[in-house]
């Protein structure tokens, strides 16, 4: 019992040789409230560079709210208040002057694909354009690279000028990923990306993520525990506004848990 706890503690700490990578994101005592009602409280965790960090949990656990505070989307909701400290690359995101720069370093993929009402090409070229890149040749390279990395290039290369919103759901979700990649993100956050995507495409995207992890850090919120098991190096379990535990993914699934509720959730006993 004591041994196990040491193990888990180690899994959470930088000294663990298996996770010697530097800390990308460090969250301490994070509490999120909507109009006074806490949606998430007392969260402490660290995300390391080049890992896929899974977040699992039933609906209303606070997973989406958590992601929103990381890239300061809470500024668009006057009702939402955030306490605690979030360090991204060592910088406190709450005190950042330039939150636009922060957001542009973080790619976000939503549960339902949002193809902007622009052409496929412009969907991917938008972020580079916002950064001030104007040269067509430069944009062409970025668009091709991002679409290829999102495993969509072959399907759309002949119709880059048609509307992004006319693609199928699975294609649109890959377009969203390509768009996120066009931001050249440091951190990629995916929120239940497979909810509206067929299983085959889901598998393709999962393969994409395994590749991308070599270039960036990924936070993967998922309602499919098996998806977390397939992809995540470490996983956090959120439940009813609480971060129940954080551990090496495989440990959570082999029953080496700190909290009985984690075992129950992973085994599908509730949620």
């Amino acid at each position, binding site marked *: 019992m004591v041994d196990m706890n040491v193990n888990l503690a180690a899994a959470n700490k930088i000294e663990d040789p298996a996770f010697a990578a530097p800390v990308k994101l460090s969250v301490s005592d994070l509490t999120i409230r909507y109009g006074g009602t806490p949606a998430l409280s007392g969260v402490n965790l660290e995300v390391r560079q080049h890992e896929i960090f899974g977040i699992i949990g039933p609906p209303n656990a606070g997973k989406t709210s958590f992601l929103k505070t990381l890239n300061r989307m809470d500024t*668009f909701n006057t009702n939402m208040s955030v306490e605690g400290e979030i360090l991204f690359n060592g910088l406190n995101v709450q005190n950042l002057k330039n939150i636009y*720069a922060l957001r542009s370093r*973080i790619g976000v993929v939503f549960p339902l694909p*949002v193809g902007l009402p622009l052409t496929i090409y412009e969907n991917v070229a*938008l972020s580079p354009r*916002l950064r001030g890149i104007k040269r067509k040749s430069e944009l062409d390279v970025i668009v091709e690279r991002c679409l290829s990395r999102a495993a969509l290039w072959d399907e759309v290369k002949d119709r880059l000028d048609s509307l992004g919103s006319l693609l199928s759901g699975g294609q649109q979700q890959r377009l969203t990923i390509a768009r996120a990649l066009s931001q050249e993100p440091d951190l990629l956050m995916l929120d239940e990306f497979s909810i509206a995507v067929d299983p085959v495409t889901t598998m393709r995207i999962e393969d994409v993520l395994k590749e991308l992890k070599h270039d960036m850090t990924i936070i993967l919120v998922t309602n499919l525990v098996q998806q977390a098991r397939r992809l995540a190096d470490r996983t956090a379990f959120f439940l009813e506004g609480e971060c129940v535990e954080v551990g090496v993914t495989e440990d959570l699934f082999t029953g080496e848990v700190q909290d009985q509720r984690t075992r129950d959730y992973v085994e599908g006993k509730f949620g």
Partner: protein
Amino acid sequence: MFAESALNVRNKRVQNLFRILFLMMTVLLIIPVVIILATLIAKGGSIISIDFLFTDPTNGMTAGGIFPALLGTVWIVAVALLASVPLGVAAAIYLNEYAGDNWFTRIIQLAIINLAGVPSIVHALFGVGAFVIFFGFGTSILAASLTLAIMTLPVVIVSTRESLRAVPQAFREACWNMGATRWQTIRRVVLPNAVSGILTGVILEVSRTTGETAPIMFTGAAFFLPFLPQGVFDQTMALSLHLFVVATQVPGVPDNLAFGVALVLIAMVLLMNSISIAFRMYLRGKKKW
């Protein structure tokens, strides 16, 4: 099993009754439009010609054409648009894209609704006080147009807001998440998708402005002017006022002349409405989401 019961029969009869009732109401509705148009065409159609449109009135407005009035209406409407569209669109963008829901925006909203309810004669008097006298524009195209602009501002704001609101919030959030500022989001995603709706609203507003009489009658439109306006500080004739004048103020105007003026006025309005409707249909076909 499916034999009709007495209740079924009754329901059916009632249902037919209401259908016919509603159909009759609908038909009633278009009767006035048809009668108006038919009368105008029958009584005024004969006078319409290129000459009628492009020559000056003669013989104390009892003969000749309507060119100064036609041109004056174009002037007034154009200047009114130049004033109200940028102002109204900017206000709508602010209200929809920037402002939160607080006491300030609620007061503005209330003001807009009330502005829309002010009778046009009150606008006219306000125009006299504010633009003709206070700002010293005199009775001029500028004063008349600004009065009209204020009157139509609520229409522009409301219709622009509707078009902006029709752009799904998810598009904005996707842009914000990418690090776009509100303005970048508006410029690159929101406006391009709302612009056609905004234009439709603007055209509708134009058609409304064309026919207004009271607001321009004391502020810039003249009874009769033997020359064309050279700039915004000149007075001008206008079609709507001209119609009022030839129909009621000048003795000895032949019937077909008065009806002809009315026909031209209505044709202008209908033309602009059709453009607006065609535009909307074109847009529906091009909807991007």
